């Protein structure tokens, strides 16, 4: 589902940044994390006492913070078993460029062209998160998902367009179309505010799963446990 951006980035640093996303695990883990957060919120709405019921965003938020904090460790664990034995280890990209001695006074600083730095994971998850916070707002009710999903898809596509892990336009279109579809499907009121979070999580996980399967097919399991030693 993703462009093969590894071959489009000529500098070794940018290739290494793209390499982080080559197996689809970052998207898969982020997507599953968002789904779990949504399920936690749903369970809270179902089983919490009525006076506590409206605080369902608390488990969602706490779950999100916990996963976001530990996602690097989770990914390192998975990659050490799946990716590194197959295609090798390259230093994971930083999430922000290293501080430079020269301070650029600009609201739109130039992105590093050759650094091993990744933006898209943070972008994708944060964008989904902020839109889903917006959809938790009660007055939107039935219109939450139909309004939020196309906006979310457009934003995700736009902010990731030139990143090391861009999304295909048709993939973003699928996400956008889930919004209008939800106009016809009458979701239970319990599920309505959490639908965007669950849908976005499922979309992200599906992206990751497709990339992951493609990666495993292209790189079958090696014989040795450590790849090749120097």
């Amino acid at each position, binding site marked *: 589902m993703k462009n093969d951006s590894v071959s489009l980035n000529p500098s070794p640093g940018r290739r*290494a940044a793209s390499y982080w996303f080559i197996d689809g695990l970052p998207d898969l883990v982020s997507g599953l994390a968002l789904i779990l957060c949504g399920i936690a919120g749903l369970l809270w709405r179902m089983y919490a006492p009525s006076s506590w019921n409206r605080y369902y965003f608390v488990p969602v938020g706490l779950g999100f913070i916990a996963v976001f904090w530990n996602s690097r460790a989770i990914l390192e664990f998975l990659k050490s078993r799946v990716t590194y034995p197959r295609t090798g280890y390259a230093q994971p990209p930083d999430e922000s460029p290293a501080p430079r001695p020269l301070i650029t006074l600009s609201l739109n600083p130039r992105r590093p062209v050759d650094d091993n730095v990744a933006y898209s994971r943070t972008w994708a998850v944060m964008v989904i998160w902020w839109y889903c916070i917006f959809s938790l707002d009660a007055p939107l009710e039935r219109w939450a998902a139909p309004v939020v999903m196309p906006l979310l898809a457009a934003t995700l596509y736009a902010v990731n367009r030139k990143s090391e892990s861009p999304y295909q336009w048709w993939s973003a279109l699928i996400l956008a179309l889930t919004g209008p579809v939800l106009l016809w499907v009458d979701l239970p009121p319990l599920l309505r505010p959490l639908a965007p979070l669950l849908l976005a999580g499922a979309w992200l996980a599906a992206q990751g799963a497709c990339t992951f399967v493609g990666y495993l097919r292209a790189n079958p399991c090696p014989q040795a446990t*450590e790849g090749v030693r120097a």
Partner: protein
Amino acid sequence: MTQLIQEIARLDRLIHEPARLTIMLILDGVGEADFLYLQREGGFTQGNLSGHLTKLEEAGYVAIEKKFKGKVPLTVCSLTGKGKAAFAAYSQRILSVFQSSGAADYARP
């Protein structure tokens, strides 16, 4: 022209070899990488890469160490401080050679 030739003669021959230059370039951009990643990225054979890495390690340009990622052992290579300085000096020198000879114009579209 004589000065230009002298500049060329002063290029670090250890880095100037294409395979080793590729290794230095990859490690400079990536930070650290294991043997398998270098092999795939540079299109090396095992023996070829091993030989070049040994030379770079002997010169103190590359550090090779065993690391554990999770419980999986990896042979990780990275540029040392000396290696980074040598690569920066080499890049600067070869760039100035191209610029002063006018050869840099060929690279422009």
